[in-house]
Protein backbone atom coordinates (compact mmCIF):
# COMPACT_ATOMS: atom_id res chain seq x y z
CA UNK A 1 0.00 0.00 0.00
CA UNK A 2 1.34 3.39 -0.92
CA UNK A 3 1.79 5.89 1.85
CA UNK A 4 0.06 9.22 1.85
CA UNK A 5 2.42 12.11 1.11
CA UNK A 6 2.52 14.47 4.07
CA UNK A 7 3.48 18.11 3.83
CA UNK A 8 7.19 18.73 4.30
CA UNK A 9 7.98 15.13 3.45
CA UNK A 10 10.45 14.63 0.65
CA UNK A 11 9.46 12.22 -2.08
CA UNK A 12 11.38 8.97 -1.77
CA UNK A 13 13.78 7.94 -4.48
CA UNK A 14 12.75 5.19 -6.82
CA UNK A 15 15.14 2.75 -5.15
CA UNK A 16 13.70 3.17 -1.66
CA UNK A 17 10.10 3.65 -2.69
CA UNK A 18 7.75 0.83 -1.77
CA UNK A 19 8.11 -1.78 -4.48
CA UNK A 20 5.04 -1.27 -6.57
CA UNK A 21 4.82 -1.67 -10.26
CA UNK A 22 1.08 -1.10 -10.21
CA UNK A 23 1.03 2.34 -8.59
CA UNK A 24 -0.71 3.66 -5.53
CA UNK A 25 -4.12 3.93 -7.19
CA UNK A 26 -4.33 0.13 -7.07
CA UNK A 27 -3.72 0.20 -3.30
CA UNK A 28 -6.36 2.88 -2.89
CA UNK A 29 -8.78 0.75 -4.86
CA UNK A 30 -8.03 -2.12 -2.47
CA UNK A 31 -8.41 0.13 0.59
CA UNK A 32 -11.93 1.06 -0.50
CA UNK A 33 -13.01 -2.58 -0.60
CA UNK A 34 -11.29 -4.03 2.45
CA UNK A 35 -14.32 -4.25 4.74
CA UNK A 36 -16.37 -5.92 2.03
CA UNK A 37 -13.40 -8.24 1.44
CA UNK A 38 -13.01 -9.30 5.06
CA UNK A 39 -16.80 -9.63 5.41
CA UNK A 40 -16.77 -11.96 2.39
CA UNK A 41 -19.22 -9.82 0.45
CA UNK A 42 -17.32 -9.52 -2.84
CA UNK A 43 -17.65 -11.57 -5.98
CA UNK A 44 -15.13 -14.36 -6.46
CA UNK A 45 -13.19 -12.66 -9.27
CA UNK A 46 -12.74 -9.46 -7.22
CA UNK A 47 -11.60 -11.49 -4.19
CA UNK A 48 -9.10 -13.29 -6.40
CA UNK A 49 -7.80 -9.98 -7.71
CA UNK A 50 -7.41 -8.63 -4.17
CA UNK A 51 -5.64 -11.78 -2.98
CA UNK A 52 -3.24 -11.48 -5.90
CA UNK A 53 -2.56 -7.85 -4.99
CA UNK A 54 -1.99 -8.74 -1.32
CA UNK A 55 0.49 -11.41 -2.34
CA UNK A 56 2.50 -8.78 -4.19
CA UNK A 57 2.11 -5.91 -1.74
CA UNK A 58 3.38 -6.59 1.81
CA UNK A 59 2.09 -3.28 3.16
CA UNK A 60 -1.45 -3.97 1.98
CA UNK A 61 -1.21 -7.47 3.43
CA UNK A 62 -0.17 -6.11 6.84
CA UNK A 63 -2.89 -3.47 6.61
CA UNK A 64 -5.60 -6.08 5.93
CA UNK A 65 -4.37 -8.19 8.84
CA UNK A 66 -4.53 -5.16 11.13
CA UNK A 67 -8.07 -4.34 9.99
CA UNK A 68 -9.15 -7.95 10.63
CA UNK A 69 -7.62 -7.76 14.11
CA UNK A 70 -9.47 -4.49 14.77
CA UNK A 71 -12.81 -5.99 13.79
CA UNK A 72 -12.10 -9.09 15.83
CA UNK A 73 -11.29 -6.99 18.92
CA UNK A 74 -14.54 -5.03 18.47
CA UNK A 75 -16.52 -8.27 18.17
CA UNK A 76 -15.05 -9.66 21.38
CA UNK A 77 -15.03 -6.48 23.40
CA UNK A 78 -16.78 -7.17 26.72
CA UNK A 79 -19.65 -5.03 27.98
CA UNK A 80 -20.64 -4.71 31.63
CA UNK A 81 -23.91 -6.19 32.81
CA UNK A 82 -26.70 -5.03 35.11
CA UNK A 83 -27.21 -6.16 38.68
CA UNK A 84 -30.64 -7.55 39.68
CA UNK A 85 -31.13 -4.41 41.80
CA UNK A 86 -30.42 -2.14 38.82
CA UNK A 87 -32.95 -4.07 36.72
CA UNK A 88 -35.64 -3.80 39.40
CA UNK A 89 -35.02 -0.09 40.11
CA UNK A 90 -35.13 0.82 36.43
CA UNK A 91 -38.36 -1.14 35.94
CA UNK A 92 -39.92 0.74 38.86
CA UNK A 93 -38.77 4.08 37.43
CA UNK A 94 -40.17 3.29 33.99
CA UNK A 95 -43.59 2.28 35.30
CA UNK A 96 -43.73 5.23 37.71
CA UNK A 97 -42.92 7.71 34.93
CA UNK A 98 -45.41 6.05 32.56
CA UNK A 99 -48.20 6.44 35.14
CA UNK A 100 -47.34 10.06 36.02
CA UNK A 101 -47.33 11.34 32.42
Amino acid sequence: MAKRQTSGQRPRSSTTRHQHDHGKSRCLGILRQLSAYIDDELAGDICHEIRRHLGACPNCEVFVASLRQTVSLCRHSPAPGLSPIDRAVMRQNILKTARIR
Partner: protein
Amino acid sequence: MKAFDKLYRDHVDLIYRFAHRLCGEPEAAKDLVQDTFLNAYRGFERFRGDAQVSTWLYTIASRACLRMRRRRKGAPDRELSLEEFIPTSDGEFRLQIPIDGLSPEEALQNKQLRHALDTAIDQLPKKYKMVLILRDMEDLSAKEVGTIMGLNERAVKSRLHRARLFVRRQLSAQGLGQAEPDHEHALLG
Protein backbone atom coordinates in the same frame (compact mmCIF):
# COMPACT_ATOMS: atom_id res chain seq x y z
CA MET B 1 -48.51 -5.27 32.04
CA LYS B 2 -47.52 -8.94 31.84
CA ALA B 3 -46.52 -8.48 28.20
CA PHE B 4 -44.42 -5.44 29.07
CA ASP B 5 -42.75 -7.29 31.92
CA LYS B 6 -41.79 -10.08 29.56
CA LEU B 7 -40.48 -7.58 27.01
CA TYR B 8 -38.43 -5.88 29.73
CA ARG B 9 -37.14 -9.10 31.26
CA ASP B 10 -36.13 -10.57 27.90
CA HIS B 11 -34.43 -7.48 26.49
CA VAL B 12 -33.19 -5.22 29.27
CA ASP B 13 -29.69 -6.73 29.32
CA LEU B 14 -29.41 -6.50 25.53
CA ILE B 15 -30.46 -2.85 25.48
CA TYR B 16 -28.24 -1.97 28.46
CA ARG B 17 -25.22 -3.50 26.72
CA PHE B 18 -26.00 -1.47 23.59
CA ALA B 19 -26.62 1.68 25.64
CA HIS B 20 -23.39 1.25 27.58
CA ARG B 21 -21.44 0.89 24.36
CA LEU B 22 -23.07 4.02 22.98
CA CYS B 23 -22.78 6.17 26.10
CA GLY B 24 -19.56 4.77 27.55
CA GLU B 25 -20.65 5.05 31.17
CA PRO B 26 -23.23 3.31 33.39
CA GLU B 27 -25.47 6.19 34.54
CA ALA B 28 -26.06 7.61 31.05
CA ALA B 29 -26.64 4.05 29.82
CA LYS B 30 -29.28 3.47 32.50
CA ASP B 31 -31.01 6.74 31.52
CA LEU B 32 -31.03 5.59 27.92
CA VAL B 33 -32.44 2.17 28.85
CA GLN B 34 -35.25 3.78 30.88
CA ASP B 35 -36.04 6.21 28.08
CA THR B 36 -36.11 3.30 25.61
CA PHE B 37 -38.46 1.10 27.64
CA LEU B 38 -40.68 4.05 28.56
CA ASN B 39 -41.16 4.73 24.84
CA ALA B 40 -41.65 1.02 24.21
CA TYR B 41 -44.28 0.88 26.96
CA ARG B 42 -46.20 3.73 25.34
CA GLY B 43 -45.87 2.36 21.84
CA PHE B 44 -46.31 -1.29 22.71
CA GLU B 45 -49.85 -1.56 21.36
CA ARG B 46 -48.82 0.07 18.10
CA PHE B 47 -45.98 -2.41 17.55
CA ARG B 48 -47.18 -4.52 14.62
CA GLY B 49 -44.47 -7.13 14.68
CA ASP B 50 -43.12 -6.27 11.21
CA ALA B 51 -39.61 -6.35 12.64
CA GLN B 52 -38.12 -8.43 15.44
CA VAL B 53 -38.83 -7.02 18.89
CA SER B 54 -35.09 -6.53 19.45
CA THR B 55 -34.78 -4.52 16.20
CA TRP B 56 -37.71 -2.36 17.31
CA LEU B 57 -36.05 -1.73 20.69
CA TYR B 58 -32.67 -0.96 19.09
CA THR B 59 -34.48 1.57 16.88
CA ILE B 60 -36.13 3.26 19.87
CA ALA B 61 -32.81 3.29 21.76
CA SER B 62 -30.92 4.75 18.79
CA ARG B 63 -33.48 7.56 18.44
CA ALA B 64 -33.46 8.21 22.18
CA CYS B 65 -29.67 8.42 22.08
CA LEU B 66 -29.76 10.95 19.24
CA ARG B 67 -32.37 13.00 21.17
CA MET B 68 -30.17 12.98 24.29
CA ARG B 69 -27.23 14.10 22.20
CA ARG B 70 -29.22 16.93 20.57
CA ARG B 71 -30.18 18.16 24.04
CA ARG B 72 -26.48 18.36 24.90
CA LYS B 73 -25.96 20.37 21.69
CA GLY B 74 -22.57 18.90 20.84
CA ALA B 75 -20.65 19.66 17.67
CA PRO B 76 -22.25 18.18 14.53
CA ASP B 77 -20.84 14.88 13.29
CA ARG B 78 -17.85 15.29 11.01
CA GLU B 79 -17.53 13.21 7.87
CA LEU B 80 -14.70 10.68 7.66
CA SER B 81 -12.95 10.46 4.30
CA LEU B 82 -11.04 7.40 3.11
CA GLU B 83 -8.03 9.56 2.24
CA GLU B 84 -7.33 10.31 5.88
CA PHE B 85 -6.79 6.62 6.62
CA ILE B 86 -3.92 6.07 4.23
CA PRO B 87 -0.84 5.40 6.37
CA THR B 88 1.83 8.10 6.34
CA SER B 89 4.65 6.11 7.94
CA ASP B 90 5.77 2.48 8.03
CA GLY B 91 4.69 2.07 11.65
CA GLU B 92 1.07 2.82 10.77
CA PHE B 93 0.48 -0.27 8.68
CA ARG B 94 0.25 -2.64 11.61
CA LEU B 95 -1.40 -2.34 15.01
CA GLN B 96 1.15 -1.21 17.57
CA ILE B 97 -0.37 -3.38 20.25
CA PRO B 98 0.79 -6.66 21.76
CA ILE B 99 -1.69 -9.18 20.37
CA ASP B 100 0.39 -11.48 18.19
CA GLY B 101 -0.36 -15.11 18.97
CA LEU B 102 -3.25 -14.20 21.30
CA SER B 103 -6.93 -14.84 20.80
CA PRO B 104 -9.04 -11.65 20.90
CA GLU B 105 -10.37 -12.69 24.33
CA GLU B 106 -6.82 -13.11 25.65
CA ALA B 107 -5.69 -9.84 24.09
CA LEU B 108 -8.61 -7.99 25.66
CA GLN B 109 -7.55 -9.07 29.14
CA ASN B 110 -4.99 -6.29 28.75
CA LYS B 111 -6.58 -3.30 30.48
CA GLN B 112 -4.58 -0.81 28.41
CA LEU B 113 -5.79 -2.39 25.19
CA ARG B 114 -9.41 -2.39 26.35
CA HIS B 115 -9.07 1.26 27.28
CA ALA B 116 -7.44 2.09 23.92
CA LEU B 117 -10.22 0.28 22.05
CA ASP B 118 -13.00 1.94 24.09
CA THR B 119 -11.38 5.35 23.60
CA ALA B 120 -11.02 4.83 19.85
CA ILE B 121 -14.68 3.83 19.53
CA ASP B 122 -15.76 6.71 21.73
CA GLN B 123 -13.87 9.19 19.52
CA LEU B 124 -15.86 8.14 16.46
CA PRO B 125 -18.43 10.64 15.21
CA LYS B 126 -21.81 9.40 16.48
CA LYS B 127 -23.27 8.23 13.16
CA TYR B 128 -20.21 6.06 12.51
CA LYS B 129 -20.05 4.86 16.08
CA MET B 130 -23.64 3.64 16.00
CA VAL B 131 -23.08 1.64 12.83
CA LEU B 132 -19.89 0.04 14.20
CA ILE B 133 -21.56 -0.88 17.49
CA LEU B 134 -24.66 -2.35 15.86
CA ARG B 135 -22.78 -4.28 13.16
CA ASP B 136 -19.49 -5.35 14.74
CA MET B 137 -20.36 -5.43 18.44
CA GLU B 138 -24.08 -6.28 18.53
CA ASP B 139 -23.58 -8.56 15.50
CA LEU B 140 -26.59 -7.34 13.49
CA SER B 141 -26.72 -7.65 9.70
CA ALA B 142 -26.18 -4.60 7.48
CA LYS B 143 -29.88 -4.81 6.57
CA GLU B 144 -30.96 -4.71 10.23
CA VAL B 145 -28.62 -1.79 10.92
CA GLY B 146 -30.17 0.00 7.93
CA THR B 147 -33.67 -0.59 9.30
CA ILE B 148 -32.68 0.75 12.72
CA MET B 149 -30.89 3.83 11.42
CA GLY B 150 -33.10 4.55 8.41
CA LEU B 151 -30.26 3.98 5.93
CA ASN B 152 -29.83 1.79 2.88
CA GLU B 153 -27.33 -1.07 3.06
CA ARG B 154 -24.82 0.74 0.90
CA ALA B 155 -24.71 3.68 3.31
CA VAL B 156 -24.38 1.30 6.27
CA LYS B 157 -21.42 -0.46 4.66
CA SER B 158 -19.76 2.80 3.73
CA ARG B 159 -20.03 4.14 7.28
CA LEU B 160 -18.93 0.82 8.75
CA HIS B 161 -15.81 0.75 6.60
CA ARG B 162 -14.80 4.26 7.63
CA ALA B 163 -15.53 3.51 11.28
CA ARG B 164 -13.34 0.40 11.20
CA LEU B 165 -10.52 2.28 9.48
CA PHE B 166 -10.78 5.03 12.11
CA VAL B 167 -10.52 2.56 15.01
CA ARG B 168 -7.67 0.71 13.26
CA ARG B 169 -5.76 3.95 12.85
CA GLN B 170 -6.27 4.91 16.49
CA LEU B 171 -4.99 1.51 17.62
CA SER B 172 -2.02 1.65 15.25
CA ALA B 173 -1.03 4.95 16.83
CA GLN B 174 -1.24 3.65 20.40
CA GLY B 175 2.11 1.92 20.86
CA LEU B 176 1.02 -0.07 23.91
CA GLY B 177 3.59 -2.09 25.83
CA GLN B 178 3.55 -5.83 26.45
CA ALA B 179 0.30 -7.43 27.52
CA GLU B 180 -0.45 -6.79 31.16
CA PRO B 181 -3.48 -8.71 32.32
CA ASP B 182 -5.82 -7.26 34.90
CA HIS B 183 -4.61 -7.59 38.45
CA GLU B 184 -7.32 -10.06 39.43
CA HIS B 185 -6.62 -12.11 36.31
CA ALA B 186 -2.92 -12.20 37.11
CA LEU B 187 -3.77 -13.42 40.60
CA LEU B 188 -5.97 -16.16 39.20
CA GLY B 189 -3.17 -17.22 36.86
